[in-house]
């Protein structure tokens, strides 16, 4: 080996080792922080999810751990979903009392509007929240609960109240208000909530059935 190559090799090795040491320190820092923060973050996320669910389904309606009841359902046209979505089954005293479903309004002004819809066992909407959207700020975004209370008018509505001909904005002869100049967004949301109610009507029997692999709470099993 010529002396130049030896020097070059030595240099490369030296910089490599230094880079390695920095990578090691950085990784150690991240690992330490992650280790310290992860339980707190997970707890925070669960609390957040629980708070969101309780916004669409009153806590008085159930006594089971709603988060633990999460089920995955296949994509469905009525839910507007193209991928598997989640739903949560509420029970009180072991009896089916309501459901929270993820749904999508695919025909918003700028694409999908993600919704969380709560429905009680009798098929009445208990609450709706927009969880993600790209509607125009200041125009169509009033469907977001953080911007206005518009979305509250779904509470207590069902497939018979109003009847199916009136699940529209007032401008189209329906029962729901909408702001002038921004009717595409509310139309999409109203349609999605109506479809979710149709989905609920089709699947209510399955929701109310005892959870698979788990004995109903009112029937103790002898081991």
């Amino acid at each position, binding site marked *: 080996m010529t002396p130049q190559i030896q020097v070059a090799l030595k240099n490369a090795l*030296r*910089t490599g080792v*230094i*880079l390695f040491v*920095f*990578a090691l320190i*950085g990784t150690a*820092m*991240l690992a330490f*922080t*992650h280790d*310290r*923060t992860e339980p*707190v*973050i997970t707890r*925070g996320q669960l609390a957040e999810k629980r708070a969101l669910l309780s916004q669409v389904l009153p806590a008085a309606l159930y006594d089971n751990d709603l988060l633990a009841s999460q089920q995955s359902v296949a994509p469905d046209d009525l839910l507007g979903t193209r991928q598997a979505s989640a739903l949560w089954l509420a029970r009180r005293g072991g009896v089916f009392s309501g459901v929270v479903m993820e749904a999508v309004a695919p025909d918003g002004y700028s694409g999908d509007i993600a919704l969380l819809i709560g429905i009680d066992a009798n098929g009445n909407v208990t609450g709706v929240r927009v969880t993600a959207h790209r509607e*125009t*700020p*200041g*125009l169509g975004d009033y469907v977001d609960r953080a911007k206005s209370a518009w979305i509250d008018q779904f509470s207590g509505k069902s497939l018979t109240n109003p009847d199916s001909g009136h699940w529209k904005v007032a401008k189209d002869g329906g029962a729901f208000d909408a702001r002038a100049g921004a009717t595409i967004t509310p139309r999409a949301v109203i349609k999605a909530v109506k479809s979710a109610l149709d989905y609920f009507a089709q699947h209510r029997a399955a929701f109310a059935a005892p959870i698979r692999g788990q004995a109903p709470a009112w029937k103790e099993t002898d081991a």
Partner: protein
Amino acid sequence: MMTMNEFRSLFHNGLIKQNTGLVQLLGLCPLLAISNNIVNALSLGLATTLVMAASSGAVSGVRNFVPHEIRIPVFVLIIAALVTVIDLAMNAFVHPLYLVLGIFIPLITTNCIVLARADAFAAKNHPLHSVVDAIAMGLGLTLVLLILGAIRELAGQGTLFSGIDLVFGKAAKSFVLHVLPNYHGFLLAILPPGAFIALGLLIAANNWYKVRTVQRARTTVPVAA
């Protein structure tokens, strides 16, 4: 240690002469994305300042151990690790604030001004100077963000400080100033093109002011002589 003059010149440099938003034109991606109202703008500005101060201090502290050829990867590593640590810590310990700023924190990594200051200043200077320089640069960016946010919010929705309740809780809702009552909004100002137009006008105003100052100096010198 640091003299008052050095301190002042670093701040003059960061806030005016080398202002990242108006002169260096660095870090425009987050600048344009987040400046649609004052609260967002101020939050991103302060978060960026915090990250810059931390990363410049760290880079300056290790500057004598880093060979020239691999300084950029090492600096990127330091900045990315620091941003992630701050992101995780905020998520865990100041969660309400994180809900507001959360989206901006990873965005800060995309801000080339952080790396630019690390390489152009912190890699050659004492840690104390580097931290002061980073804070000055960060505040310069915050200032531009604040002006942009105010212009866009005022033109776009006729208010100032909307969304402040997200930072200070529900009680702060009354801080929102409805400067133009019954204003129907000017959507363009809130959408991304509004950011480009407003920033363009700001840069133009800044350049006009600079040119005018130079011309005045020129015209007054012969008279005095």
